[in-house]
């Protein structure tokens, strides 16, 4: 048991630094509008944005609203980011035709479920379908499974999206988020 606990704690450090790193990367990229459906994996990043006066954090009722909202932001000259989890990608599919057909940038940061160490079987279909669904719609996808690579993945995605006017998604693997947290939550 002790060994299992040790390996789990190594998989998910108590204080990951990547949410703070991608906050700085997104600020540097000029993000002004942050569209969210709240997610545990994004909670620290959302708190950082809420604390800053330069960004508007908009809570959505469904993720496809965020795809449309950020299209409007781009039409008005502002950059935004959509923070969601993998199940929310399924809600976005038709709305993705908007940035694809209009050659608009869209930056999505997706925390993965139904991936490494998932405990909830209902998360598996959309978790496994996230990448092919996005790619089927013409979104460029980059998945990261190591915490120290998250910030550079987001930085590269932001440059790609806003300089080449493409929809781009970064998938943050469950290995980075630490599946053990979900198991502990379920036992409480």
């Amino acid at each position, binding site marked *: 048991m002790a060994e299992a606990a040790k390996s789990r704690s190594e998989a998910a450090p108590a204080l990951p630094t990547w949410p703070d790193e991608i906050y700085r990367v997104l600020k540097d990229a000029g993000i002004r509008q942050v569209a969210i459906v709240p997610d545990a994996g994004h909670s620290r990043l959302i708190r950082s944005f809420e604390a800053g006066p330069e960004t508007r954090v908009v809570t959505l009722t469904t993720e496809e609203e965020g795809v*449309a909202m950020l299209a409007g932001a781009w039409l*008005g000259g*502002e950059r935004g980011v959509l923070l969601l989890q993998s199940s929310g990608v399924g809600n976005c599919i038709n709305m993705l035709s908007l940035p694809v057909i209009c*050659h608009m940038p869209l930056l999505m940061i997706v925390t993965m479920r139904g991936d490494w160490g998932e405990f909830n079987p209902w998360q598996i279909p959309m978790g496994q379908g996230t990448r092919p669904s996005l790619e089927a719609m013409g979104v460029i996808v980059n998945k990261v499974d190591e915490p120290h690579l998250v910030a550079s993945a987001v930085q590269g995605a932001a440059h790609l999206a806003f300089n080449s006017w493409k929809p781009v998604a970064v998938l943050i693997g469950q290995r980075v988020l630490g599946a053990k947290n979900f198991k502990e939550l379920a036992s409480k």
Partner: protein
Amino acid sequence: MTNPNALLHRRDVVNELLRDRGDLLVIAGLGAPNWDVSAAGDHPNNFPLWGAMGGASMIGLGLALAQPKRKVIVITGDGEMLMNVGSLASIAVEAPKNLTIAVLDNERFGETGMQKTPTASGVDLAAIATACGIRSSRIVRTMAEVTELRDLAHEGRGTAFAQIKINPEALVFVMPPADGVILTTRFRQSVLGDEALFN
């Protein structure tokens, strides 16, 4: 006295909403509202949708937040609005002063054979908007009320929502450019200047 049951004509309504439009920014929902806005005159400050059903109001929100000094009006249909009615909650919380949502409610899915929408059975979009917290929400039945809505939209005194009861008439299509890149680029160039052509 006018007949209280007489329904408004959709292009009269849109022509009035866009009368002396100045630098008003217009998002048109897919289908007939797109053709109505185009019939009132193609304009670089129009962003007419050919797809993205359910997205018109949220495009309006993102645009209104990005351009707080400009006035934004979303002109869409009841079917389009009903598809993403949760956006009214998202918009009410942000409450940009410069955003008006005008729903042309013919109680029909007009593009697909005039099947009835839920508003034909009494679903009250204005009441939903009110319940979400958009205080300036109303059902519009007369041209005098359309004029009042037009003035609200042009003045931008708070987020406004209107469910405008219109005749379910099928009119000739008047189409804007269909290429999303042309629509996006000319809109951004008009609103942001030539800088929009560069990154």
